[in-house]
């Protein structure tokens, strides 16, 4: 990527590295290891990885809160190390735990952060009222946050992250620990945020269904290293070869029909009247269905099963773990 292209990116990192502890001592931790990343403006970008993969450290580095050990980065055109305060005026962060002052009311939590982000009093009050209404918290605005449920706290923390209308929003596990209803409400808010306001969002999650639904592109981190990058669909197609089909039909007659040579994992469940198999390409599906019909089968349903991001994630995780073991050996 040319330096001009890099300038147009919301986030651009080159060989970003962060080590905790003394490198000469055994107990040092390489939290982020040579990360090269480009996030486009207006994109919802997913950082995936299990606990300790380096997601939170990456957010801290990108927001200028933590200094890198090596490498360089530009975020919204700023150098986070040298221009941290100026960058942070343009970013909003939902930290992994809501990080709210429980002794203060919802309203106070918002107005104090409004002032810290340099928003004037009148605008802060107006935006706080609007956000509390949007996030369904206006009736509890004057109550201490200590009395709020986990879902309400998460919504309030999200409102706080949006109060100063940031261009880039970091969301660190926004639905972690929430019940399904609260999690769905937060996901809808994120979707609205990106669709209506075209803000850049970096979403850290290990909820892969959530990432598949919300993210334009995702990257998978393992031990601080980037192991995959792309759209959820492309990652799935590239990493999981072929397409798995479930065909519901009246019977399966192997004498009248033999599956194509390229078909794999062919199984017939007589009880459920379901034939399952894997084909190398989507384009093989019509020919297969036609040959089944020619052989006298009655087809009731054909369901392709696209590999999910979860399948991809586990495939990557297993591959990386095995490769890691080989390197160690």
């Amino acid at each position: 990527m040319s330096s001009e292209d890099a300038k147009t990116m919301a986030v651009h990192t080159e060989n970003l590295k962060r080590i905790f502890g003394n490198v000469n001592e055994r107990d040092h931790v390489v939290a982020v290891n040579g990360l090269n990343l480009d996030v486009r403006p207006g994109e919802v970008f997913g950082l995936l990885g299990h606990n300790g993969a380096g997601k939170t450290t990456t957010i801290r580095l990108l927001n200028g809160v933590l200094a890198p050990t090596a490498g360089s980065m530009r975020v919204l055109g700023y150098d986070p190390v040298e221009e941290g305060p100026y960058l942070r005026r343009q970013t909003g962060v939902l930290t992994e735990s809501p990080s709210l002052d429980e002794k203060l009311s919802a309203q106070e939590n918002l107005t104090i952060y409004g002032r810290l982000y340099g928003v004037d009093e009148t605008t802060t009050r107006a935006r706080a009222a609007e956000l509390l209404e949007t996030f369904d918290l206006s009736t509890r605005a004057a109550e201490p946050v200590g009395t709020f449920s986990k879902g309400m706290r998460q919504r309030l923390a999200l409102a706080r992250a949006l109060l100063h209308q940031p261009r880039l929003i970091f969301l660190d596990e926004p639905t972690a620990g929430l019940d399904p209803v609260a999690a769905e409400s937060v996901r809808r808010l994120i979707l609205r945020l990106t669709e209506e306001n075209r803000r850049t969002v970096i979403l850290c999650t290990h909820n892969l269904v959530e990432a598949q639904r919300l993210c334009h592109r995702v990257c998978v981190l393992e031990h601080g290293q980037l192991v995959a990058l792309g759209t959820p669909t492309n990652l799935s197609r590239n990493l999981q070869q072929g397409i798995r089909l479930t065909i519901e039909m009246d019977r399966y007659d192997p004498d009248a029909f033999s599956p194509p040579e390229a078909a794999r994992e062919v199984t017939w469940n007589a009880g459920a009247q379901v034939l399952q198999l894997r084909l190398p390409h989507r384009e093989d599906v019509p020919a297969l269905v036609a040959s089944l019909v020619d052989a006298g089968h009655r087809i009731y349903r054909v369901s392709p099963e696209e590999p999910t991001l979860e399948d991809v994630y586990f495939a990557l995780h297993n591959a990386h773990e095995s490769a890691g073991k080989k390197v160690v050996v």
Partner: protein
Amino acid sequence: MNERPSSRTSRFNWRVVHTLAKRDLKIVGRSKAILLPMVVVPLIFIVAIPLGVGLFAPQMASAGESEDLGRFLEMMPAPMRKAFAGYTDAQIIVVATIQHLFAPMFLIIPLMVASTIAAGSYVGEKERGTLEALLHTPTTDLELFAGKLLAAWIPACVIGWGSFLVYTVVANVGAWHVMGRIYFPNAMWIALVTWVVPAAAGLGLGMILLISARVSTFQEAYQIGGVVVVPVLLLVFGQLAGVLYFNLIAVLVLGAILWAVDAAMIWFGVRTFRRDEIIARV
């Protein structure tokens, strides 16, 4: 177009510092664990003790307490001893206790208030899990440091000065039947309150600042921070043992020493209060 100067040279924003200090004070004001010792200890020091000494000075004099005070006076430098000439035993008990013996103990109030608020502000923030969101705001390291410093220092001074006013009233009213006139404060106390009390507050919060990186709970910080009363106790015992006496010169010198220690601790604090190091420990 955004201004793009370096964060190291960014303009210090007092509005941000004021907001940070006000936020911390609001939280302290709503926390019983922090508020309770800040109310109870000054009440004992500024009401119970001077009232007790004033009201019961005649009984203490007749019970032989003045013999101990006599020995205390004998160890005093001659010019100071002259100040007690012509006093009755009860008056000696009142003046020696309220004006001299109690002077170093009064410093416990700003020390304790500053260290309690600082423990709640620095360490309590870590314990409550609210520090990370604060570090992600556009505040500079210096603004964060100043906000937290003022949140502890200003109330410690205000409570110290307020306590002095109450102490003045209680000391004079409580001992009116013994003294028959307004005998308190003297010049030494005015110097103590205006010059040493703010410095003692700085010492209390500086101590917490030094230990804040190594502790993770408010209670832990509060207990370790209790060490700050040791120098005060040394001053009290020093007076009782005749090693030093609280007069105007001693108070001015003590204040100068404390301010120097404060300056060194603030210099160290500014250099070590770095968000990238703080967040690595969150």
